[in-house]
């Protein structure tokens, strides 16, 4: 059973979002990494890039498949997780921690509230299996 931490926000495309002050940290969920299997490459947006909500902004690639990552909300990329370039497997081992992808400054600080909460995301996972 995939882990779904209670304090995060989620998207239907299996990203998670953690509010950290005015910034949002984005990653992919335990369910997503588990489905994809061993990660081998991660392509992240450049800091400063403006992201549109729901648009692809990164690529995670496993032995099995490549998958787009979608921006959960509109905003600007403040920082990316450089460590993933040499250790993409961190996405598998710690998807909610050291495996974070990028940090954004949201255009609308309230936008995160429109995302799924943990129980809604759990319900989504249950409906998919």
């Amino acid at each position, binding site marked *: 059973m995939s882990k779904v931490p209670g304090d995060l926000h989620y998207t239907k495309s299996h990203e998670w979002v953690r509010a950290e002050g005015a910034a949002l940290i984005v990653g992919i969920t335990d369910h997503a990494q*588990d489905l994809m*299997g*061993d990660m*081998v*490459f991660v392509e992240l947006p450049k800091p400063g890039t403006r992201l549109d909500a729901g648009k692809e902004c990164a690529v995670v*690639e496993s*032995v*099995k498949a*490549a998958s787009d990552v979608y921006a959960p909300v509109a905003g600007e990329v403040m920082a990316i997780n450089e460590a993933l370039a040499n250790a993409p*497997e961190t996405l*598998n081992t710690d998807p909610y921690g050291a495996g974070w992808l990028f940090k954004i400054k949201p255009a609308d600080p309230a936008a995160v509230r429109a995302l799924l909460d943990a129980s809604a995301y759990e319900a989504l996972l249950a409906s998919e299996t």
Partner: protein
Amino acid sequence: MGHHTPLYEEHVGAGARMVDFGGWDMPLHYGSQIAEHHAVRQQAGIFDVSHMRAVEVRGADARAYLRFLLANDVDKLKTPGKALYSCLLNEQGGVLDDLIVYFLAPDWFRLIVNAGPAENDIAWLRAHTGRFTVDITPRPDLAMIAVQGPRADHAASQVLGDEGYGVLARLKPFFGAFAGDTFVARTGYTGEAGFEVLIDAREVVGLWRRFTAQGVVPAGLGARDTLRLEAGMNLYGHDMDTSVSPLESGLAWTVSLTADREFIGRPALVRQRAQGVMRRLTGLVLRGSGVVRSGQEIRGPWGSGTVTSGSFSPSLSRGIGLVRVPAAAADGDACELIGRSGQILAARLVAPPFVRQGRVLIDLDGEGR
């Protein structure tokens, strides 16, 4: 729901992610297919290959029959136990399946065929017995495991007992022999040392547990695919099928066109060879980061080609693949791989295998070797 091998519960209990393969529910991996890959290259891994089908070919005409059915010539098999790799062709020279045939006795050969095409193969074999005195008997009562890696034999010495291990230890590569009712063979699909075991399906769970208790790592189809790809071995349905001949699939070495033998598909192959084989199968390695995917296009000065198998090589930390290219394309040639969003990745053709026996066999960066 697909078919289940006798080891299905064992896989599920070990936390395997199960996938459909040729109509069978099989383990893709048990957590990390890359870790399983490395375990086989460096230690030992165990695969459930019970989805593959053993088929007995028995009768006075068994040899003559298989000389007519197979593209490779079973007359090369002189010593009981010796195995041969061959394609099974249709009249157009297209590949119906690839298989291993073991010569067990003058009136007894054993085939191991792929899971997906198995039913069609058996129907084909039966439809072509014709004038031959031969019986075709599938053996769904047998299960099959592969134990592969540099530590495979050590594990066998602990598991198979004095008699079983004694039989195995005496086997040369590509030979098999019976130890009681169990058949052990020095064959595999990983490019590593090791063996395969055909055993009564009711006994395979116990055997599997005895190997894993020795530290042999359960490995799934994911690792099996990257291992065989590194070893430069074709996968039926990807690298060849009925739309291509062995001559276009890097398998000319498995076709025996000696003058004294007629076989199904031979006239088509002779014709193709006379007209010139237009395409060939070879290897591809990316220069930089990226993963090669089946179906992607490559381009070079000689035109375009198609990736038939692609992945990320855990041993090389590079994207690698098998590609079908125009005959003029030479190993060593630079080319471009068209990525999933149309981006161009620098690549190079190389003669497979990429890795065997834990050793890198290609020049990774094309700077001479």
